[in-house]
């Protein structure tokens, strides 16, 4: 049963790695700028899930804090990029 769980964690890691590859390809060949921002959003979310898989595999808690930090900074980055696309500047006077 435990071996089944190990294989499950490996399968989920493989899924997230393939999802990150899809997002990276879309970020490279996205025709417009908002496609690239959307691909960046997907990319950091999948990276956060991959770190959570590492946390399950090693059964420690500090991967959770790294995942929370990735979610925080990814949100700040993608909102800043989307705001730049929307208005032309990030922080308006």
């Amino acid at each position, binding site marked *: 049963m435990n071996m089944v769980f190990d294989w499950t964690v490996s399968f989920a*890691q493989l899924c997230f790695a393939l999802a990150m590859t899809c997002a990276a390809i879309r970020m490279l060949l996205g025709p417009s700028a908002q496609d690239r921002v959307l691909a960046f959003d997907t990319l950091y979310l999948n990276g956060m899930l991959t770190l959570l898989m590492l946390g399950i595999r090693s059964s420690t808690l500090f991967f959770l804090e790294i995942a929370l930090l990735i979610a925080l900074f990814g949100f700040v980055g993608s909102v800043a990029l989307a705001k730049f696309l929307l208005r032309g500047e990030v922080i308006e006077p």
Partner: protein
Amino acid sequence: MTGADLPLWATIPAALLLVIGGLLTLIGSAGLLRLSSFFARMHAPTLGSTLGTGCVLIASMLVSSAFAHRPMLHELLITGFIAMTSPMTAILLMHAARRRSRPSAR
């Protein structure tokens, strides 16, 4: 190692949730790669950011509670944060795409 003394009540739901979450996230990102226009591509990764993230975080909560022999609710922080912030990013991106695809605003 991972499943050293993981009890059965935590192993089976966690494994099912991990498989479901991984497949949903992969389907969402493949949709991001395959769909044709930006307004169709907008919908696909939300599958991963809502259901995929929720399934994986519930599975992580189950596993860490089973290891620590007490309820561990740290993952609710990440779930709440993702559930609050991903619609805001989507709304801003949709506004930007609508404004940029309109020819008079250029």
